[in-house]
Each structure stands twice: as C-alpha cells, then as structure tokens.
C-alpha cells in the first residue's frame, strides 16, 4: 500500500470538506443584510484588496497564484453578493411590462455573473507546458503523419503557400504525407445543374490536381458535399493510414517546427488524442484594421482565447479542437467515427466526444500556424455566427453540463466556452434596457443611488478588475464590449434560430482573402445607425425626465450614465464599420532580421528588417541606399530552414531621410518560392515575438480613454462617407469620402 498517496488523498478529502463548509458560511455571510453605506465602506475595502492582489498576481513571485486566487474569490464573492442583493431586494415592479423588463435585466445580469464565475474557474490557473522537441528521438520510431488541408473555394495561391509550408515541416519526409482535400471539385459540384458553376468546379478540380502533381502531394475529392468540412476530412481519413493527422485550414500556413513541437506530446502519453496550437492571424480582422488601426499595437481577439483561455482549459483537461492547427491521433478519431458532424462547430464537438471517453487533450502555447482572419465585417460576422450557432448546437444537442464521462471541471470548461456565445441576449438587454426606464418609464432597477454605489458599481468595477487581471495582457478594457456589440444584433438572430431548430444551421465557409480596394461603409451598418438613433433619443428623454421629475433624478442620472456608456461604445463601433482600403494583398508584420542586399556586381548593403510579408519587405539600411539598383538579391538567415536564403528582389522605393527601402520578392524558381514561404511564414519565433510585442497590459483608464478618443471620430467619418455617397448619387461629386484615415 502506498501510504503517502493514501495519506494525501485523505488530506485532500478533508480539505474539500473544509472548503465546502467555508463556502457555505461565506454564502451565508453574503446573504447577510446591510444598509447601503455599510456595504459601500465594505465594498471599497474589498475593491482595494482586489486591486492590490491582482497587482501582485501580475508580478512573477512565489505567491503569485495565491494572490490570483484570492483576488478571484473576492471578486466572485462580491458579484454573488450583488446578485443576491438584486434578487432579494430590488426585483419589485408595479405592472406586467415592468415585471418583464425587471426579470429580463436580472436574467441578463445572472447570465453575466455565471459566465464570469465560470471564466474565473477556467482561468484560475493557466497551465504552462514546457517546449518539447523531437531532438534526440530515433527518427525511425516516429509515427507517420497525414497533413490534411481541406479546401472549399479558396484561391489556388493561398493553397499553394500552405502546401509549400507543409512540405517544409521539420519531420522525416518518409513519414509525412500531405493531402489536399478539395470540396470545391466534388462530383456533385462538377455535375451541378448550373452549367457555369459546374464548369468552374471542373476547372478548379483540374487546376488543383495539377498543383498537387506539381508539388508532389495527394489530391482528394469525393462524390458528395456531405457534412461540410467534417465530411471532407472523414472522407480523406478513410483513404489514408498514418498514425497522426494534422488538420490545416486552406489559409493556415504551418511553421517548420509545428510537428517538432507537437508530436512529442503524442509520444509521451498514449491517451492524448489532440495537440492543439494557437491560430496566429497574419492579417488584421475588421475590428483590428478599422478600429484605431490597432493590429500591431493591440492584442487580437485570438490572443485572448489562445493566450489565456486555452491555457486555462488545458489545466482542467478540457482544451478543445479548434478546427485547424492541431495534431490528432487517428486511433482515437476512429473510435468516434472521425470528425463529428452533428453541429457546425465540428471541432469542439469532436473534442467533447473524445473527452467524454476519457481521452486527453494538450494545448501547446506557441504560434506555429499563421492564418488569415476574415477581411470584411460581413465575413467576420458570418464566421462568428457559425461559431455561436455551433456552440449553441453543442449545448442543446450534446448537453455537456450533464454529459457522462466528463469530469466536473471539464463540464465547467465546456460550459464556460459555450455560455460565452450566448452573450447577444444579455448584450442586447444591457443596450436597450435604459430605454425601458428613460423612454417608457418602466421601473427596471429598484434601488437608491447609494445602493447603486454600494452594490452595483463595486460589482462592475470588481468584474473589470478581475477581467483585467485574467486577460489584461491579451485583451484591452472595453474591447470585449466592442466585439460583443458588433456581433450581438446578428448573432442574436442566428442563436434564436438555433434555439427554435437546433439541427437547422448549416456550415458556411468563412470568406477569406477578400480584397478591399476602397474605403466603404459596411452594408451591415444600418442596424447600428438605428441603435445609435434610439439610444440618443433615450438620452434626450433622460434629460427631459431629469428636468421634469425631480423625485427620480438620482436614478435618472445613473441610467443616463449607463445609456451614455452604451452610446460611446456604439459610436466606437462605427469606427469598425468603416471598412478601410487595404493597400497590400498580404498584411506586413513586424520583423527584426538582419539582411544583406546584394547586387550582381557584388555590391552589398546591410540593413535590418522592419516588416515583412509574403510579397515583400521593408527594411532600414545602415548606410545610404540611393544607389541600390532595381534588381538585387535579398540574403538573410532563415530559422525555419536553418540556413541563409537568397531571394531575388525588386526595389520599389527608397526613402533617403529614413533610409527605408521597400522591396518586392521576385522568386525565379521552385526553391526560391519555397524560401520566400519559409522565410516569411515558417518562423514561429517571429510570430512569438510579434505576439509578445502587442500583448501588453494597459491600465483600465487608458483603455477607457482610448475608446472615448476613437469613439467620436468615426461619427464624422461616417457622415463624410455617407454624404459623399449621397453627393455621388446626385452627381455632385465624383470622389468618395476621405480614404485611408
């Protein structure tokens, strides 16, 4: 008998008993009634303690995690106290309409409370895994790998880059098999009723087959487009045999060390069915591009999910498959019949099915796949609607909260991920509820100003503090609100459909690589114009109410502040809806390599890269570069290939004052094509340094100031664009409004 183990287990049981008892006593304490001023004093002290603890938790030190947990529990307790107070004392109403409004608002608050509690549990202790490598492992013992690149309608150029990068994966070539899974050239498509579509599908199959042949990989297609991406992958799985399967979206370019960093986790634990890595987006999504041009300065939405939440989920053994950039074990996939296809988020569903069977997942926090984010707001919304619908389908069809085989913490993990996507219900209520009071005079929040200061504000502040502590580096304050507001109107509709018919939604491929040749107002803007109009009207009603109803002035001021906050957020959203012209086809990302520009005459210029894309680069020369000829060779060290690359370039522009040289890559042969891909897209170190550069914590006030600052500017820009449009229609003005602000 292993005495220490038994002793430890006994000790744990005791601890859990104490925890339950202490939690119950704490719960009773949270129920204790107190007048507002006493509560205000207590809340202020608690907020100060949360602030100090979260500050300590952000510094690396021995008790970092203790401070983190303490701050989390304090924050949760304060929120629970707030919700209890709301539920016990403030849900009074005088008529049926008020009752509906009161309960809707309370329901939204409970939802927000539950999601933040689930989020706090998930992110309490993010797991940091060591970086493993295949170095030192006998290559002959390595498992074989099928790299599958499902495609539906993506351009050949995009696919070629992904395939070339896959071919350069640092893995024994005899164990690496690359497959292009073409769903755009299926028999069903080729024989479509529409002759033009059929011809296009036929042409697509032919050209992709040629591409595969040229690059030496396997082309797959199938008879029917059943079960969308999941069906496509499952069809290929049946025709392949390797031990491990890598799934890469068509635009997801892997770095050369992808397998080197992921396969070891499969070797260490036979029970692991999934090694997921982050999706690194090489271009800004519409929010990042349009909002403050913040792509290189502000952490992206992905950074929050992959930089924090997946690590938290990994700690609880519930990190899930994200559709791409993942390594999976065929043996386990076979147990569940391949990729699941009941929902339109087949990835999370597959992970759920395998977690239920007791298999494990691993998350490696190193960006090793760069992909493309949707360029337009339209495409962005389409993608988010699919995710929201898919996750809701999982909730309704798979019921992870009571799924057998899942541990309690895995249920919490899945519910946290799923519940998040129900935000449109709450967000719409938070946006519109001030109207119920300011315009319709419904008593939606029955509290005095002192109580709002004592209970409501501390709860809101604590929530933001906790959010900043958990996601401070990967999510700036108020940006989540912006993302939510942008999506809520559209996803609300989509979610309602799912609730009515859980099996109805079908998979829609997110359009990527769309061009933005000119600045324009997103066609989806009208709903936001209406919202702004309605909320501005509510503000006006509030001012009228303030003047005419002296009795309720305190509450009116509070609701007007709330309404004003919503208005500022909506105005900020306008910034995102102004789709800005994208000058380059590929987004340039910062780079720091040393480079040498050489001419055929052996003249050379030394410089440092400033930024880089698949098409070209910008560099700062160390000497004067006025004499650099138009054609030259670009030489630099490629970490991916572990050698110097020599790429022919064309000089586009030289700025003598800043010594900046802009060049375009002009590869002449297959090897140079590969070198360009390897140099620009296959270096995970570069992605990491880029991520580190933009994932920085800022103060809450800076974030709020930032939102306020950019909030008003786009209003004028929208007006200019719309006026330009109007003038254009009238034939008064030919040029569109101011572009590329």
């Amino acid at each position, binding site marked *: 008998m292993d005495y220490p183990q038994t002793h430890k287990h006994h000790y744990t049981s005791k601890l859990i008993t104490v925890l339950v008892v202490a939690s119950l006593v704490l719960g009773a304490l949270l129920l204790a009634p*107190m007048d507002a*001023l006493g509560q205000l004093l207590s809340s202020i002290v608690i907020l100060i303690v949360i602030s100090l603890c979260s500050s300590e938790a952000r510094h690396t030190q021995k008790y970092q995690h203790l401070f983190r*947990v303490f701050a989390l529990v304090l924050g949760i307790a304060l929120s629970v106290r707030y919700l209890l107070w709301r539920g016990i004392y403030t849900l009074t109403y005088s008529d049926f309409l008020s009752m509906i409004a009161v309960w809707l608002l309370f329901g939204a608050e409970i939802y927000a409370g539950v999601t933040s509690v689930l989020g706090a549990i998930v992110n309490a202790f993010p797991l940091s895994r060591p970086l493993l490598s295949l170095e030192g492992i006998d290559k002959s013992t390595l498992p074989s790998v099928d790299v599958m690149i499902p495609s539906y309608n993506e351009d050949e150029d995009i696919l070629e880059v992904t395939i070339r990068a896959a071919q350069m994966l640092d893995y024994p070539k005899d164990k690496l098999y690359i497959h292009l899974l073409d769903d755009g050239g299926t028999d069903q498509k080729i024989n479509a009723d529409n002759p033009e579509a059929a011809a296009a599908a036929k042409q697509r199959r032919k050209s992709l087959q040629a591409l595969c042949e040229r690059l030496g990989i396997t082309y797959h297609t199938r008879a029917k487009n059943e079960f969308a991406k999941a069906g496509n992958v499952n069809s290929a799985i049946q025709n392949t045999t390797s031990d491990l399967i890598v799934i890469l979206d068509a635009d997801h370019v892997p770095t050369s060390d992808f397998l080197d960093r992921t396969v070891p986790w499969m070797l260490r634990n036979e029970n692991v069915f999934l090694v997921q890595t982050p999706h690194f987006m090489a271009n800004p999504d519409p929010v990042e591009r349009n909002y403050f041009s913040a792509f290189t300065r502000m952490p992206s939405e992905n950074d929050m999910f992959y930089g924090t939440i997946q690590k938290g989920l990994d700690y609880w053994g519930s990190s899930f498959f994200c559709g791409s950039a993942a390594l999976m074990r065929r043996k386990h996939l076979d147990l569940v019949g391949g990729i699941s296809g009941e929902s339109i988020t087949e990835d999370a569903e597959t992970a759920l099915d395998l977690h239920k069977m007791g298999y494990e997942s691993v998350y490696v926090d190193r960006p090793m796949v760069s992909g493309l984010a949707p360029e337009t707001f339209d495409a962005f919304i389409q993608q988010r609607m699919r995710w929201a619908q898919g996750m809701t389908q999982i909730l309704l069809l798979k019921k992870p909260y009571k799924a057998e085989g899942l541990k309690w913490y895995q249920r919490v993990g899945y519910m946290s991920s799923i519940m998040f996507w129900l935000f449109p219900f709450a967000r719409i209520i938070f946006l519109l509820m001030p109207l119920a009071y300011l315009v319709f005079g419904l008593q939606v929040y029955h509290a005095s100003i002192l109580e709002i200061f004592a209970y409501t504000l501390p709860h809101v502040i604590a929530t933001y503090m906790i959010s900043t502590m958990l996601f401070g580096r990967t999510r700036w304050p108020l940006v989540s609100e912006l993302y939510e507001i942008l999506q809520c109107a559209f996803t609300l509709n989509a979610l309602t459909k799912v609730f009515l018919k859980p099996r109805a939604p079908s998979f829609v491929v997110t359009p990527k690589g769309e061009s933005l040749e000119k600045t324009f107002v997103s066609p989806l803007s009208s709903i936001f114009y209406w919202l702004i109009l309605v909320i501005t009207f509510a503000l006006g009603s509030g001012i009228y109410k303030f003047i005419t*109803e002296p009795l309720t002035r305190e509450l009116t001021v509070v609701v007007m502040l709330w309404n004003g906050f919503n208005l500022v957020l909506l105005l900020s959203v306008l910034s995102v809806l102004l789709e800005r012209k994208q000058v380059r086809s590929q987004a340039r990302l910062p780079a720091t390599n040393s480079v040498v520009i050489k001419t055929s005459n052996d003249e050379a210029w030394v410089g440092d890269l400033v930024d880089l894309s698949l098409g070209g680069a910008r560099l700062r020369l160390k000497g004067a570069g006025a004499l650099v000829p138009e054609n030259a060779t670009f030489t630099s060290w490629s970490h991916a290939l572990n050698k110097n690359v020599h790429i022919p370039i064309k000089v586009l522009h030289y700025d003598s004052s800043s010594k900046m040289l802009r060049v375009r890559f002009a590869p002449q042969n297959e090897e140079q094509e590969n070198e360009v891909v390897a140099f620009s897209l296959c270096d995970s170190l570069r992605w990491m340094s880029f991520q580190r550069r933009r994932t920085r914590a800022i103060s809450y006030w800076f974030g709020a100031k930032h939102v306020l600052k950019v909030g008003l500017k786009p209003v004028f820009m929208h007006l200019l664009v719309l006026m330009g449009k109007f003038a254009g229609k009238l034939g008064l003005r030919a040029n569109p409004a101011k572009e590329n602000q």
Partner: protein
Amino acid sequence: MIKKYLISLLCLCLPFTLVAETNSYRLTDFFGAGSTVRLQGKSASVDISIPLSSVADVDSALLTLEVVSSQALIKKRSQLYVRFNNATIGQIAFDPDRPSLVSEVTIPKSLWRAGFNSLTLAVSQHYAEQCVDGNAPELWSEINVYNSTLKITTSVNEKRFTLEALSGFFNPGIGGQRNVQLYTASETDPVIKQQTLPIVAQALALRNQYQPLIIQQDYFADEYVLPQLEQTDNNYWDEQNVARYERTAWYLKAKQQQSVHVLVGTVDALSPVLSDEVINDIDGAFLKAERTPAFVKDSQVIVPASYRLIVSGTTQDEVLAAAKALAVMDDAINPISQVKVLSQSQMQANSLQRNRVLNPDNHYTFEDFGATTTQFRDEGDFNRRVSFRLPADFYVPENASVSLLLDFGYGAGFGPGSVMNVSVNDELVHGLALNNINGQSYRDYQLRIPARFFKGGVNNLDFAVTMRPPLAGVACDDVPGSHLVFQLDNSSVIELPDAGNVAVQPNLAMLSETAYPFARYKSAPASTIAIPSDDYFNAALTLSAKLAQAAQAPLLNLQITRGSDISVDGSVIVLGTPDTLSSIEQAEFSTAIEATKRWSYRLQNTLHNQVRNLTDDKSFKEMRVDGHTVQENELGEQAILTAQAHPVSSQTDTLFIIAAQTPELLEARVEDLVSLSLWGQMAGDFFAWKDPLSPSLIMQVSEKFELGEADDSWLHLRLWLSNNPWYWLIGFIVLVFTVSMIIYILLKRRNEQVQDSW
C-alpha cells in the same frame, strides 16, 4: 320658611353665576408659521384657526393687529379686511403716509362658535387706479402675528355637568383647562398611584390634544373639619348645614372655579368625600361627572361650587378599569353623568398604540385617516396638508417605496402658471402643470416615493395648488378666476411598504414627537417613571400625560414607581436631584449628574457632539465622547434631560434622566418642558433648559444604539451589520482567504499532478 328656601336657592345659584375669565393670546399661539405674515399681490389672505372650547361662552373679544404696509399702496383701494367665520368685522385702510399701524377690531360674540373659528386677514392692494400688475413687488403688507393679540373674556356655560362635557373642559381651544388636580385618599393603595393615576392623567391630557395639561395630585383628609366661621353662633352647624357642607367639595385646596378636579380611588377610600347616593351607586368600575354645590354663608363663599369627576370602583382593579375606560372614551356619545364599566376588550397597551398609526404593508384611503375631500375655488395659491402617523420605529430598506394613488381633477379654463406640487415632509416630490384648457380628472395617479422620505411619527403630505385664470390678451384686463376649481378626493390611496420596527436611540426629538420608546408599534414593554419620593409625583404625572399626548394614545404600559432603582427592565425616566441621582451608577455615562457633575463640553470634543438626526445619520462615526470636565456645582435654576442606553436592563432599552436642583424646581421645569414651545424643540440626547421658551443647550453625547423588535432577528442583523460593517468585512475577508487558501492548495496539487504526468 319661605325665606329659608329662598336663601338656600340663592346659595345654590350664587356660585354658578358666571365667573368670567379674561385671557390674552398672541396670534402666533394659533398660527404655526413665523412671527410675520407677508401678504403680496393684488389680493391675498391668510386664515388663522382659533379653537374655542365647547363649554366656553365668549363674553367679549378684542383683536389687536399690528400691520405694516407698503408705501406704494394707494389710499381707498388698498385695505385690510378682517373676517371672522366669513363675516367681515373690520376694514382697515392702508395709508402710504402711515405705513405702520395698530388697529383694534372687536369680534362680536355672536360670531363665535364651539370648535374652530376662522379668522381671515385679507388684503386688497393697488399702487395705481388702473392696470395694476398683480405681481408687482411693491404690493405687500405685513402682519406681525406675534405682536398681534386676541384678548378674550370667556365663562363656562355648562349648567349640567355630564361626561360629554369633559371634552369641552379638557379642550385645546380657548376656555379649555390647562391644569387639573387629582385627589386621592391619603392612604392610597400603591397600585392606584403607580398605574391608575398616570392613566387618568393621560386620559385627560389626551382630550387636551396638543395643549399641555399640568397634573397635580393631592390628598383629601379622612374626615372633614368644619370651618371656623366668623360671627357665627354656635348653633350654625346644625344638621342641615353640616349636610350641606358634606355635599360640597370641602377638600379642595385651591379655590379654583370653573375647573374640573378628579377623585380617584376605591369606594371605601373615597367614602369620606362622596355622598351616600354616590357610594351606593358604586358597585363596579365607575365614572361619574358631578357638580358639587358651593357652601355660602351670608354671600361669602366658604366652599366654591365645583365640577368633579369620580373614577372609582369597589376594588383597585375596578378603579383601574374605570381609568382605562376614561382614557378611551368618546365623550360625545356619553351625554350622561355616570357610567358603570362592565368589561372592555382590545385594551392591551400595544394594540391601543397601534390604532393611532398607519400599519406598514397596508394601503389606506385618505378617508381612512380622516382626511376629507378638498376643493379649491377661485384664483390663488392653496395648500392641503394631509397628515398621518407612521409607527415611531418605522424602518424600511433603502429601496422601499411608498405609492400614492391620487384621485384629483381640475376644471376647465386654467391659465398659465397653474400647477400642483406635491411635497412629503417638506421635500418636493412631484410637480404637475395644470395646463389642459378643458380640465382633467385623474384616477389612481401614481407617485412612487422612496420610503426614506417618510419617518416615524407624524408625516405630512402637502398638495400646493396654484390656480391662475387664462390670460386676457388685452392690456389692463384680467380674466376673473371665479370659475377655477380643483378637487382632491379622499378616495386617494397611500400604499405603505412592509417595514421593520426599529429605531435609533437615544433620540429626544423622537421622544417628543412620538413618545418612543414608551409608545411602540409592535410591542409595549413595561416602562417606568422612577421618582425618589412623592415630591416628584406631580412632575411624573405631568410627564406621563405629555407622553400620551405625543403618542396620541394612552400608555397603559407606563407606571410611576418610587425609588431610583433602575434595575427593572424597560425604558425608564428617572426624575431626581443630584443627591438622589447619586444612587445610580453613572460612571459609564457620557455625562453624570451627581453631587459632582461630569460634563462633556463641546470644545473638549470633536464636532460629533453636535446634534444630528440619528435616524438619518449613517456616518458610522464612533459616538464616543472623550473629553469631560468634572466639577462640583449646583444645577441652579435649570433642569437637565439626558438619554442613554439603559445600563442594566436585560433587553436593549433607553434610560432618561431628568434632574433639577430641588423637587420644586424639577416640577416647575417639567411644566416648562411640556409647554408647546419647548416640547417641540427637544433633540439630541442632552437637553438643558430653564424656561419654557428655548433650551439652554442641546447636545449629542451618548453612543447610539438600535431599539427594536427582538423577534425579527433578520432586521436586527441588518441594523447591527449596518452599524458594524467592519465585523462583516473582517468575517468576509477571513472566509474568502480561507476558501482561497484551500482552493490554492488544491489547484497547486492538481498542477503538480499534471506536471508529474509529463
């Protein structure tokens, strides 16, 4: 023989010839506003209600008015009209050359009526013959209501004294009695003195409503001693004259006329002063209103006639029952002279106190608490005050609200500037422009008012309505406002939220307004006025009477005990001198009144010994007074009233101490204290005074505490935590830390397990 009868008849009648009494009142005695009333505009008026007792006949009344008018007013067209019960009794012309005037107006006695009489002072003011702007600032006049007086001579008109007349004798109006003597036998049972006399005192004071009633207790001798009469032969005290003498109120110490005195005691105890007929009538709890004849010899009144009220029974309990019946009796339905009380129900102290207040978690129409439908007519500013009482310990959560569902309407033809403003306890809560030219009627017009606008005790809802006619649109032409009408119906409803019964103590302001903690809402724990000796008994009775007036209900739970023992539970008022108070351990009190005095002078302490409204005070500052001066001195002419937590009571209670240098001074000061002017000024927990006009000093020196229902532990917890948030906070932090620590250990352990699996 005929002569004899004639003499006897004359003797009987003589004492009842009307004895007139003349008093002079300031108009401020009848008028709650300041000392000066300013009347502005073209026409304005002020109404002053003058109450008159139903037993008083007015023989003459002279009104003296001190008026100052604007020099801009023109003669002839600018006048002050004096109306009494709507009859014009005087017209005083304003003269710009004589802006200050004193005028006397006689009020015809035929215009007086029992109850409230309305004195209207109305002005008509013009600065030009034509085109007078009604809002011109120079249109004003002032009446100094403090210096203006009403000199009135009254006499008692009661020929036959019945119980019905009690409300006339004990009446807040002119002619009402302001002091009363309670007579008992010298060997009185303690129960009578402890319980019955306070209830009798309260019963009479309640009839006086707000006017103070000074109570004096006295003893009658066990048997009479025939008076020595001058120039009387020895045969004068024959059987007939002795019998005549026996029937008089020979025991009266003061030769007061026209007033009622009270005999209290068992039939046995009262037998020396009662006639055999009355004694025979007493076979249970007994009340009798009786007129005693005078004893007159040769036109000399030896014993005056008197009105006496007999509160008696065969046992002490029956006497007590009779006193209780007197306390709750509606006199108007007892036009008889004697009552035998057989039984009573719902006579618990708490239920009596509860009947005078609106109960939380209920709704009431205005009619329920006696408000009538009000109609305003014509142009002008009108105000309707609706008053009601809430439990003194009315305690509601912050977000509770009171709903008013108002039924009101206004007629057609209202002009610009017509508004209705609603105030609660002088805080404006709602305004409504009366701007529908066709008029409008509202039913259940809902106002939700935060309950914190209401307080324990008397609450006032004011409906201030300004009615203006429409504009004529032509210069110098006004539309008369005679068509304007506004009506507030008494079907309007007030909905009260559920409330707890907790009050913050000590609070002398609350004591003066509601008699809390002696009168409570849910319970009526026994309370005491402790006196060291009989010398203080009058003061104790006067005080108990005043407390009943404040509570507007008899305090059956209040008794008067001898001795300065405060070991009994319940709230206590201790009366005493520094010497007698030395028996109380005062070391823990913020102030001490003993042979040596410990005063917390304000300059020795921070600002927190200034008076604050404790009910609203949520600063949670520690109410600890650190600085003291211990000195040896006498109290002089002044008296001190202090309040603090009861030091030895097993329940939370309040201890009041009233001290003066001697018992006589104490009695005089208590009489000052219960006066209309001083009682309303009580505040804080340290109150010193030496006249009935204003206090010498008011301070806040004791730590505050809550007093409330012990059975509602949730409410107690709320109060306790509200006052001691640090305890909650410390418990919260400790528990959160414990939970966090365990979670941290468990998380760390899991992390180790995960890492071990690598």
